[in-house]
């Protein structure tokens, strides 16, 4: 299977280790992975703030960049959904860019959905290697277009051998929301505070969270409080179990 990797700005800049893990796991499962460096942003920051004209060329760029890949996989469901859910409506029906973006939308997945829905991966090879004590799961809101909260829990259960429990209010937003976190820091801050309280109450030492934005938010609040809790992407956990991950802090 030929897969194009859509890295997304935040993962590219802040969490290269997640990108490396995605590549390693996909290759381990027999995918041929390509990373076209002409990719930039999906335009979500503009789109989410009503600036459709600014989002349009960015979506169109990605449609061109990934034109020939069988599948396009992103560590982030949020950016994948920007293309899949919102991308098409930015272009008038019947136009050439619309055709391209419709086509891309049908091939676009976040890593975990790709693993479960397309590859239908058997977790047996990594189950024994999982280093997961006291792990809890946070559901990222923007994965909604791909997976409901309930199914996400079942999925994580299957992929990670039932070693992860959902946090209390696991599907309540952590308060990230892109520009929202900076525009309404008080609300956003109070929301992540609630998330951290749920983490504290769970006693978990590892939080599984697939979105880079949510992760920055939750990690930021944990760091300010001096709490020693690790936040990781599903791909990192699997890559670690397979002995394929880059060193921590890369």
């Amino acid at each position, binding site marked *: 299977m030929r897969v194009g990797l859509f*890295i997304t*700005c935040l*993962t590219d*800049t*802040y*969490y*290269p*280790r997640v*990108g*490396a893990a995605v590549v390693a796991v996909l*290759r381990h499962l027999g995918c041929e992975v390509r*990373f076209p*460096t*002409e*990719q*930039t*942003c999906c*335009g979500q*920051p*503009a*789109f*989410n*703030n*009503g*600036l459709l004209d*600014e989002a349009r*060329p*960015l979506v169109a760029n990605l449609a061109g960049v990934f034109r020939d890949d069988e599948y396009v996989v992103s560590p982030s469901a949020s950016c994948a959904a920007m293309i899949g859910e919102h991308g098409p409506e930015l272009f008038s029906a019947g136009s050439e860019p619309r055709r391209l973006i419709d086509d891309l939308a049908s091939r676009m997945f976040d890593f975990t959905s790709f693993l479960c829905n397309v590859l239908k991966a058997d977790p047996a090879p990594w189950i024994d290697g999982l280093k997961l004590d006291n792990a809890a799961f946070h559901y990222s*809101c*923007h994965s*909604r277009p791909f997976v*409901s909260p309930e199914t996400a829990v079942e999925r994580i259960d299957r992929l990670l051998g039932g070693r992860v429990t959902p946090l209390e*209010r696991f*599907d*309540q*937003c952590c*308060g*990230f929301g892109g*520009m*929202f*976190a*900076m*525009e*309404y*820091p*008080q*609300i956003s*801050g*109070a*929301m*992540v505070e*609630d998330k951290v309280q749920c983490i504290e109450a769970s006693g978990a030492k590892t939080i599984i969270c697939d979105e880079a934005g949510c992760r*920055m938010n939750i*990690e*930021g*609040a944990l*760091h*300010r409080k001096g709490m020693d809790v690790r936040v990781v992407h599903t791909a990192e956990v699997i890559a670690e179990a397979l002995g394929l991950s*880059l060193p921590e802090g*890369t």
Partner: protein
Amino acid sequence: MTQSSAFKQRIAEAIADDRLHRAVLSATVERDDLRRAEWARLTDVQGLRELARRIKDHTLDNLDRYLDQLITSFERLGIHVHFASTAEEARAATIDIAREHDCLHIVKSKSMLTEEIHLNEALEQAGLEVIETDLGEYLLQLDDDRPSHITCPAVHKDVAACAQTFTEKLGTPYTEDPPTLVKIARKALRDAFREADMAITGANFAVAESGTIVLIMNEGNGRFCVHHPRVHVAMMGIEKIVPTLNDLSVMLKLLARSATAQRMNIDTHLITGPKRDDDPDGPEHMHVIIVDAGRSAILAGRYREVLRCIRCGACLNACPVYRTVGGHAYGGTYPGPIGKLIAGLLSNYDHGVELPAASSLCGACLDACPVKIDIPRMLLNMRADAIGRSWENRAKSRLLRRAMWAMRSPLRYEWGQRLIRTLMRMKAGRDGWLRRGFGPGRDWTAAQRDMKAPARRSFRDLWKKGEIR
């Protein structure tokens, strides 16, 4: 003060109020959990939601026809029909009805529409006595307070606050025992009912084919309102119509479950006309005031689906922002996700233009909405409407435009990435974290969280160097 800084101030006040936060969080989480459990008990909740959506959409698409039918049905039953295109007309019509029938003492059952048009103040100014009879609303009226939730108006008050109000305003001995508090209210309200000559209610639904007004509640107050007083005035928005009693049954099934996780409310009144000759009780005169107040403008535009709302409050309970700030912070009649939409839409953006940005677009509201209003999508559209309308928005849009311009070229993207990395890593501590951000990052770190500095090398750097295997 700009609307948006006034909003921020209300948010700050709400967040500083720990008692409020605790009361709202626990009540909303509990209600949301109960609703989900009750929904799960239905054989096909998704099918039912879809059916409800279609009923509402069909009605809205043919609203002129169903309004005609409804009015004909009302008139056939001897119900007097009034049409108010503005809030002011609705208030005036109510006062006129009271005068026409020589009414002085009014009892009210809970109605968001009457809150929206500020009816009580107008009635009082016209020399009429008006008493709210829903327990929560009664309490708020005693306190000169406003509802902060659509279906649970006093959710922002804990028991101690209620107890205090009763002692202060009614002079009864202090107690925090809910049954005793209810008894106190019941006694006061019974007197009000005995004296009342006019009742004002809202209407949860109005059935076009039969002219039936449907009132849903959980306290006995509704029954007293519609049985004893001589005159009954029901006030309804134009969007409250359902075509048939069959359609109504679908709505009822969803409303009770979504609002309060009940299969049916304790009281579901189907009122079809005033007292008939052989009826033992009921009002001699019945009036319905059909209110537009900005709704037909919504109907005509791209936000039509917000008129599907059946005011169940489920989106409020599910919303993490509502859970955090409560209802008063929104500054209007309708709080929560649906409030963020209709505040601006009903007022043609006279107010509420800043509300749609105060959302993480998490989508919990859409999951909770029984009639599947795509609230996140509507919020996005309204954000587009808000562009350039305030200096805060102009600053944000300018910043985003610049960033998106940079993103249009891979080269600029990479240089931008390098610049940000260098700057942030310079300001970061040895552990790679910033305690105080700069630029827009200042707001990030102001909210009790640190900011991560970019990784030493980006993914693309690693890829280009062949270090990704």
